């Protein structure tokens, strides 16, 4: 199955996720500098750039872990730039971390269950007043979580604490945890970094399948082969700014892009 390369089937209000003129200032450092990016429904876009280009900061801004100094972020046409992260997930944004952050002492299955949204058992009194309802929801959640663990091939480890997982398994666990919330858009921060080749194929395969199911994906990745295989469009960032964007082949031949990376090598 091929990734959807040019499917700008927009929401009635424009792209699914759109950031315009974003600025994030940390003291004297401008990590993101008037950056704009758009992600359309069903699209898979690669976000590349040298280290320190501001890619992860951009993710944090879109996912709400950080609020921008200025600029606009729209999800489904609604302005969300100053919303807290827990509101973003309700708007269909899910994200993974560059260095995975599993809840190390909780079991693999519980890690995934933590991704459930709106469980009535997360309210204190419901646990005592409607234990039946909580138990029924929990059974459904467990069923869903097990299906997701199956999807990322971690079923055999569901009762193990997450700390025993390898780096690649942790990335897969995070993916399953995010999928628990049924996000429309997934932000993947370097899913291939530090992953052994076998697991890498599995990750690529699963990302393709998710995109095939209609999920829009924004992907930070240094592995250009992987980006070329997955993404129809690539956005290049350098020094917090948009450097260029286009098809993977064009971008990898682009002089300024090569210079940006070479500049990094030279530095």
């Amino acid at each position, binding site marked *: 199955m091929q990734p959807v390369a040019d499917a700008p089937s927009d929401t009635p209000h424009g792209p699914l996720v759109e950031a315009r003129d974003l600025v994030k200032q940390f003291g004297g450092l401008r990590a993101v500098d008037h950056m704009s990016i758009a992600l359309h429904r069903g699209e898979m876009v690669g976000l590349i750039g040298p280290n320190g280009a501001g890619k992860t900061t951009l993710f944090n801004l879109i*996912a709400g*872990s950080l609020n921008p100094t200025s600029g606009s972020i729209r999800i489904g046409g609604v302005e969300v730039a100053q919303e*807290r*992260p*827990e509101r*973003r*997930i*309700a708007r269909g944004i899910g*994200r993974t*971390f560059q260095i995975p*952050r*599993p*809840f*190390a*002492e*909780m*079991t693999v*299955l*519980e890690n995934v*269950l*933590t*991704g*459930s*949204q709106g*469980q009535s*058992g*997360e*309210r*204190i009194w419901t*646990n*005592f007043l409607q234990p039946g309802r*909580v*138990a029924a929801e*929990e*059974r459904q*959640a*467990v069923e869903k979580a097990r299906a997701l663990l199956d999807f990322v091939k971690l079923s055999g480890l*569901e*009762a193990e604490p997450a700390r025993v997982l390898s780096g690649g398994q942790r990335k897969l666990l995070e993916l399953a*945890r*995010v999928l628990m*919330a049924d996000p429309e858009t997934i932000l993947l921060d370097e899913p291939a970094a530090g992953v052994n080749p076998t697991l890498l194929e599995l990750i690529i395969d699963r990302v393709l399948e998710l995109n095939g199911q209609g999920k829009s994906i924004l992907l930070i990745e240094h592995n250009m082969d992987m980006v070329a295989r997955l993404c129809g469009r690539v956005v290049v960032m350098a020094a917090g700014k948009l450097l260029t964007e286009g098809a993977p082949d064009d971008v990898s031949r682009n002089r300024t892009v090569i210079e940006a990376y070479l500049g990094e090598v030279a530095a």
Partner: protein
Amino acid sequence: MSVELVAYVAFFLTMALTYAVMCLGLNVQWGQTGLFNVGVAGFVAIGAYVSALLTTPDAPDRFGGFGLPILVGWLGAALATGLASFLVGWLTIRLRADYLAIATFGVAVTVQLVALNLQSVTGGPFGIGFIPRPFANLAGDPLAFSLLNLGVLIVVVVLLYLALEHLLRSPWGRVLRAIREDETAALALGKNATRFRLQAFAIGGAIMGLAGATQAHFVGFIAPDNYVPLLTFQVWAMLIVGGSGNNRGAILGAVLVWGIWAASAGAIASLFPPDQQARAAALRIVLIGVGLCAILLLRPRGILGEERVVSRHLARLKPSHRVASRPTPPDS
């Protein structure tokens, strides 16, 4: 065994169990959520005074004495203390971790001050007497009276224990554990960390208030002197000794430390002449202070250690075992 001995043991255990309730409350705040409360004594005092005001007969020289049933007093105590904890938490939980500690310390100092000086409500330095005791009509039969009171406290502790374990293994408890392990990841999963912490802090506070109320009704009178920083310290020592994060540890630690405390009174007192007893009391506090620091250094996980908790519906997957290393609570 003589009747007196049974009655004494029952008295000792009842007292110890009132501390166990405080410990369970502190365990929700600290053991399960990583929130540091330096004002345990203040919250216990709020519960004790509220319940005393609600249940004592009308007193001409001060406000209240509403003569309500004991259970109403206990419920009111838990609600009032829960509300006070909620307010303190709301003020500080979004800020640095130790601002909560400083604010709770302030609460304890202020509650002490109010208890001492707001004579028209709290009775001032002499406190409030004639707090109705459960089964007071049996007071003529010390054995039945003390055993029934012990029974009441056992019921309270068991019910609390079951309710807390239920909550800990619920989705709510799971989110709480997730937040303690990695707040950033929990936020990215849509969990409002501040809300969950605040809830845990309020519940822990309500339990401390209940503890204060049960103790007040068991002893029959209260005074500001009962709620000095030493009390906070004892409850902390109990939880740390028993193993924070572990409800059974909290109960065990309370009984154990209360036992050591009671026994050390006699032992240290016997080393000093009668006119030096104030010194003996001070030395006892030095020893428990040094003891707590030593436990923090040598065995920070306590006797039972933290229990590994798995959500209820998953418990059959794997036998529970202890956590290898205590995850550090959030500190920023």
